[in-house]
């Protein structure tokens, strides 16, 4: 991953045309130049020139970004804004250290013997205490929530048994059987592991239905995206290294994930984090080449076709996760998969690619702003008239549930794979 000093020419590529003012989700809410990419790039340049230091104002504006990449995708000059902001955060973190709460969580997510550490296991048992009301917000997971944030917040309960600890998942450890079609190793990621194991199980089921054999390697770690977003590159790198080893050992034809962010993490972040060693980078690129999003695997690789059963009509709208649509270029595949669900009628919302507001650690850095962005999303979802909003990222699911709940919009949120079967998610 490039350091800030190596990005000087990237920063100079910004000609300050202002196009990013029309795409940035935080600018849509805050409406000031300091909250769009052009302003942030200028601030970072000024920071590098020594014009501004590590002031509260500078850090506030730097951390307000969701790293959604909308500015980058529309930038006429192709400025890699996400790389600039991530490198600036890294620079800051190297000088200031990782925020205390985040550092504890990252350590847990990295802990040996799986994503799950003793601390988190305890928390699962104790969650009755912690979750007495929604205001406690004991998120122990960096992407989803962190201790003691504002009140009235809808906090997802931790699963009683995490995905990787489920007996049927544990039994799927080891190499997939290559005799029956292609072999697929499933990467759960924190969201599925701790919060929504059912999405993991539905994913395994779909892969099997599509004629592949699937394994779930134990020992897999967090993909590193949350640590990366917070600028804790050392931790993110350790996570990448661990996953590299675990998935090399799995030796499958494909690695599949049902989390957009993790998919992006494995496909591009891993190699970038390990780029300091040409050997590791080359190995990471092999892993990246095997990695697929669940919809990409099912549609493009396995030619999955769900049987067209007559069922109750479900009007569904789809939210494009930034890390799937923009980062991986996968917009059609999840929609195609979605339309295979029994009774599903897809009804597009306005601006389905607008960030949900969770990304880039914004939920941690500035929960109120994150929710204001989610409120915009909730409005578009409501106007679509759909009964369900489907997406392909557990992070977005958590955020959309919270945002819809806050806006009083009664639309159910689910993962695309959950609509592949008839039972209601």
């Amino acid at each position, binding site marked *: 991953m490039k350091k800030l000093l190596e990005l000087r020419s990237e920063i*100079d*590529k910004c*000609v*300050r*045309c*202002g*196009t990013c*003012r*029309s795409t940035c989700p935080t600018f849509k809410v805050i*409406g*000031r*130049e*300091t909250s769009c990419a*052009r*302003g942030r790039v*200028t*601030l970072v340049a*000024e920071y590098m020139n020594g*014009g*501004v230091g590590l*002031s509260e*104002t*500078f850090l506030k*504006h730097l951390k307000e970004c969701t790293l959604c990449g909308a500015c980058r995708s529309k*930038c*006429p*000059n*192709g400025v890699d804004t996400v790389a600039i902001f991530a490198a600036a955060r890294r620079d800051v973190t190297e000088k200031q250290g990782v925020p205390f709460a985040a550092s504890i969580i990252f350590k847990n997510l990295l802990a040996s013997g799986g994503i799950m550490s003793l601390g988190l296991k305890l928390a699962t048992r104790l969650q009755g205490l912690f979750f007495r009301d929604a205001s406690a917000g004991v998120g122990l997971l960096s992407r989803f929530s962190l201790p003691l944030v504002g009140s009235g917040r809808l906090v997802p309960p931790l699963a009683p048994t995490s995905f990787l600890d489920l007996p049927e998942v544990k039994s799927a450890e080891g190499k997939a059987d290559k005799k029956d079609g292609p072999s697929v190793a499933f990467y759960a990621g924190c969201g599925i592991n701790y919060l929504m194991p059912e999405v993991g199980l539905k994913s395994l089921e779909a892969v099997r239905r599509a004629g592949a054999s699937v394994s779930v390697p134990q020992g897999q770690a967090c993909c590193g995206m949350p640590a990366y977003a917070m600028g804790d590159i050392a931790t993110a790198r350790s996570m990448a290294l661990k996953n590299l080893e675990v998935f090399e050992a799995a030796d499958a034809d494909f690695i599949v994930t049902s989390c957009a962010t993790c998919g992006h993490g494995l496909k591009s972040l891993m190699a970038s984090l390990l780029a300091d060693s040409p050997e590791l980078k080359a190995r990471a690129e092999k892993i990246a080449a095997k990695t697929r999003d669940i919809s990409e695997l099912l549609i493009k690789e396995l030619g999955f076709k769900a049987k067209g059963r007559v069922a109750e009509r479900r009007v569904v709208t789809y939210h494009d996760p930034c890390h799937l649509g923009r980062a991986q270029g996968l917009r059609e595949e999840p929609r195609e998969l979605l339309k295979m669900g029994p009774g599903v009628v897809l009804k597009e919302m306005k601006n389905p690619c607008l960030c949900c507001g969770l990304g880039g650690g914004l939920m941690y850095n500035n929960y109120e702003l994150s929710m204001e962005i989610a409120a915009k999303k909730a409005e578009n979802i409501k106007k679509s008239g759909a009964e369900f909003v489907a997406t392909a990222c557990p992070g977005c699911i958590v955020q959309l549930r919270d945002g819809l709940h806050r806006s009083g919009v009664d639309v159910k949120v689910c993962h695309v794979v959950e609509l592949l079967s008839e039972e209601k998610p």
Partner: protein
Amino acid sequence: MKMISNSVKNELIRVVGAKNASFSREELVCYAYDATNKLSLPDAVVFPSTPEEISLVLKMANSEGFPVIPRGAGSGFSGGSVPVEGGVVVSFERMTKILEIDTENLVAVVEPGVVTWDLQQSVERLGLFYPPDPSSHRFSTIGGNIAECAGGPRAVKYGVTRDYVLGLEAVLPTGEIVTTGVRTAKGVVGYDLTKLFVGSEGTLGIVTKAVLKLLPLPEATKTMLATFPKMTEAAKAVSAIIRGKVIPSTLEIIDRVSLRCVEEYSKTGLPDVEAMLLIEVDGPKDSLERDCRTVEAICREHGGADFRVAEGKEEVKKLWEARRSISASLYRVKPNKINEDIVVPRSRIPELVEGLGKISAARGVLIASFGHAGDGNIHVNVMYDKKSAAEAAAAEAAVTDVFTLTLSLSGTISGEHGVGTAKQKYLEMELSPAAIEAMKRIKASFDPKGILNPGKIFPKAGAKTAAAGTKAPL
């Protein structure tokens, strides 16, 4: 002018509220630039929400002697919103309301911070149309469009911002709040201050409300593409289309360099040819077919190699996204450019194109041209690398040549960007000393202390300027 004092800062806070006044370097640096990419720090940024607040700021500026610079989105191409002499930037980022859309009288009333695109979307939902569409319309503001008299591709048929401003509420540099113009179709009471404010680059007053004319939304639009083996042939086709009495709603020309740069960015599938015309016709559905056939015939007659009608909303959207991104994407060939927006009478576009080719060859600089050929407005981008003194000097010389050529063809040196700081030194090439003096007297009568957006339009006394006067008579 002097830096603002602490007592001024406190007073500004009192006027707009602490949340709406910024003095930290972190905030100031983000209000130091526009799309010319030149930076000059202000001393403060305020975010007012009423004309009264702006009036107080201007009164204070007169008594304390600091500059005031109005700013919309900071997307201008001439330095209009850059605080070149420091002072207080008045940002319109909080005055973003569409106050009224009057469907009976076809009028919209808006605050200046409204993004042009947002207004267009809102009126189009009601079957109405606000035509001015500068390439920045997805982020530029109505206030900024008024200050610079923004144009856009549709100007060929629908005119520019000036043609849609019926009336204004503005704060004069001395602090008085005035209303100008009408909300009726006609009006000749007194001098036309409305038109005077439009295009005055924020030097005569600060617009706080605008009454805009709307049209019925055209029933349908067709988008066509025609490619040409030579720029001059495309240019001749443009003149012929106008002569053929078809007025397209847009008639854009794009040269090879521009096509290549923007294709690299947009992956639209643009052809790799010497020149392309992007043509739109709009109006009642049944007349469009005929217009398309006329345009096609003219293009083919003038060497148009490939002609086709764009299919579906997606393709049209992509084509326009690409077209609007040309200007910024040109930096892919060279790190610096001088971006001019000259206009010539439409019949003289072929001569202009030929002349640009000669200048490029003679000066040894790359010139990328594209733009609103239909109204004679060509964006001429002289590309260079400022790290090379020789290239920079050649580029400067080429620009002067371009202006000399333009003026000899009865053209003007700026169609829609304004003078700002970027074209000051060429002002005397187009305007006579007497005309400039008259303008300065107007400025002085509105703004005796020269506090509103100083350093714009008129070159400072003693500044190095290009040789005066070669404009062909009107």
